[in-house]
């Protein structure tokens, strides 16, 4: 009986999706006219280089046109990290031995390679989120690359420790700075994340108004958050 109910539910879901997708023409040009935008895609493509002076239109959409949604995404990641930490939180007892994060020693090849790659990965991550408005990538991508670099060190070296307190403070301050910048725009100029200074010229490093500033905050926040998650996960004791 249960099986039939599941089949009926899946059939209803499939029919609903089919109804929706039937309304979208396949392969049709949905961008619209670039000169006189009548559709939202053409509007974004026209406005992001002209009004916002941002070379990467995707960044302009994510941070500027849809900045409030990005705040929601950052909050989701923050809640995921908080939930994980609250489930896996372990009170440190004094007579307890150190939890072994790395159970087998790495070979000297891996250790030397990790030592050389780690600063380069941090540099790449920082480059990706600082140049978010010029080249592909942005805060989330840069933060994920930084977390990958920390992960390499965490699984290679037994005694590599990230300063937990500094990480948590950086994460919280970056999140608060994002909200603070947004609220400043709201109270001073009348809308959340309103550009508070001039947008500069296209292709300059400091251009695009608030976009570089916010992507630096998001990059720091995502990088420290994911590093914390990995650190917590690696310290689980096998029961």
């Amino acid at each position, binding site marked *: 009986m249960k099986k039939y109910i599941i089949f009926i539910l899946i059939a209803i879901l499939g029919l609903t999706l089919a109804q929706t997708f039937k309304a979208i023409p396949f392969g049709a040009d949905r961008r619209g006219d670039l000169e006189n935008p009548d559709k939202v895609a053409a509007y974004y493509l026209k406005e992001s280089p002209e009004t916002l002076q941002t070379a*990467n239109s*995707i960044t302009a959409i994510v941070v500027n046109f849809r900045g409030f949604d990005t705040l929601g995404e950052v909050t989701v990641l923050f809640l995921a990290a908080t939930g994980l930490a609250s489930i896996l939180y372990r009170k440190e007892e004094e007579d307890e031995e150190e939890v072994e994060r790395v159970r087998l020693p790495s070979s000297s090849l891996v250790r030397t390679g990790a030592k050389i790659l780690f600063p380069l990965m941090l540099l790449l991550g920082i480059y*990706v989120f600082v140049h978010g408005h010029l080249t*592909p*990538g*942005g805060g*989330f*991508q840069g933060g*994920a*690359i930084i*977390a*990958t670099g920390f*992960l390499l060190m965490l*699984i290679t070296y037994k005694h590599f420790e990230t300063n937990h307190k500094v990480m948590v403070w950086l994460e919280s301050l970056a999140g608060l700075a994002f909200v603070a910048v947004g609220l400043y725009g709201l109270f001073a100029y009348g809308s959340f994340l309103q550009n508070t200074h001039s947008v500069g010229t296209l292709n300059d490093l400091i251009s695009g108004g608030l976009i570089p500033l916010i992507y630096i905050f998001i990059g720091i926040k995502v990088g420290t958050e*994911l590093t914390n*998650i*990995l650190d917590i*996960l*690696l310290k*689980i004791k*096998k*029961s």
Partner: protein
Amino acid sequence: MALILFLIVMAIILIAAAIYAVMQKDLLYAVLATGIISVVLSVFFYLLQAPDVAITEAAIGIALTTIIFIITIRNTSRNEEEYSEDHIKKF
């Protein structure tokens, strides 16, 4: 022509890795197969002119998700348990 051949081979690898990940009983290999899916997907995203998504898929899908699953396997069991009715009743 060479590009199309390359794309077809990549698509076959993608589907094969996905089927392998579902069928494999050894969970470590299954997780590595999902990593391969992410590699192919990120190449596809790049070729479809979505470099932003390609970078995200490469960093999150290949590195972080795979590692988180491997840590989970390290702390639980490596082999998938046999499917049985009793197993469901336990929950």
